[in-house]
């Protein structure tokens, strides 16, 4: 099994490129859903100690809406979509055709809208990876929680991952171009370490 700390620069670059493609597709899907332009940054690869996971997105005590899905098929792992609270609320307003600032609680309808958006974004991301690498990837049903970012991140890794020392994520930030209540968020691809090897092999870098 690979030690995450031994990944070479060329491998990291390739993983960044692969995920950039996924993120691009997800951004297109979000753009169509919200009818606005979506910007994405260059994906960031992070190898961190399990105990440092709460700091992955800088703000451990921020309330976020998080959609987690399993990735199944030739690769295993998870995708995690994280929206700051106000972004999640705004996204649900857009999807439910409500005026900005009209929603204040995450009721059943709001939660369902966010979950569905997460579902579509993750599926778009996985489809792009699947096409590019010639691998079969299947998304599970989505699961949503609204909680502190630190709790979401640690639980995602300890409850569903198998690594207890160093963990890995490929993170892309996205945001709407304009406005102070623009939607922004983070997309995290969390392949299991064994699957990282499969990704690298599929692009002939392992």
């Amino acid at each position, binding site marked *: 099994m690979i030690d995450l700390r031994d990944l070479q620069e060329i491998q990291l670059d390739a993983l960044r490129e692969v995920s950039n493609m996924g993120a691009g597709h997800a951004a297109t899907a979000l753009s169509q859903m919200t009818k606005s332009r979506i910007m994405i940054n260059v994906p960031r690869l992070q190898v961190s100690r399990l105990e440092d996971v709460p700091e992955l997105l800088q703000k*451990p005590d921020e309330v976020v809406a998080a959609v987690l899905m399993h990735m199944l098929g030739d690769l295993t792992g998870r995708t995690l979509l994280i929206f700051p609270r106000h972004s999640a609320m705004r996204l649900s307003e857009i999807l439910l055709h409500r005026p900005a600032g009209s929603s204040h609680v995450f009721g059943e309808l709001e939660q369902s809208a966010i979950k569905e958006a997460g579902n579509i974004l993750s599926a778009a991301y996985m489809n792009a990876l699947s096409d590019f690498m010639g691998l079969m990837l299947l998304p599970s049903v989505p699961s949503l929680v609204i909680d502190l970012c630190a709790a979401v991140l640690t639980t995602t890794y300890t409850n569903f991952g198998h690594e207890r020392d160093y963990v890995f994520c490929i993170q892309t930030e996205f945001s709407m171009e304009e406005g102070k209540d623009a939607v922004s968020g983070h997309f995290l691809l969390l392949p299991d370490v064994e699957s990282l090897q499969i990704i690298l092999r599929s692009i002939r870098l392992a």
Partner: protein
Amino acid sequence: MTARQTFVKVAQHAVGGREDTLITLGLGSCVAIMLHDRATLVGGMAHVLLPEPSLARDASNPSKFATSAVPLLMDEIRALGGSASRLEARLVGGASMFTSLMGPGSLNMGERNIRASREALKKANIPILAEEVGRDYGRSVRYWIGESRIVVTSVGRPDIVL
């Protein structure tokens, strides 16, 4: 009284006296173990991530695991003048979030952390005074050692005093 606030991060621990407030934010499946000596007002908190060292390759940090964090806290509380025989424990955390994704075979780390913490306390003969554990939501904890008081906060829920 000017209180000292200490933030206890994941896989860390802290001890203190009557001036101290120990705080930990965003417990998901992690468990916060608080040990308190009511007579001397000395106490400590560990934010444990995993039940036991055998689950990780690197077991060098005792505050990462429930089984090793309990004896560690006891030692440090004793060093501050607390007595192991008077200690009382309170447990917070161990939630199972994203439950719909947990298949029959998946390991529920929150549940396992709670169980391991209880067992470690039993082994050390420390009674559990109160618990706010399990369920499906995250928690933050503030522990005022001088007041023997612990308050648990969660997103969208009323505070709970232990």
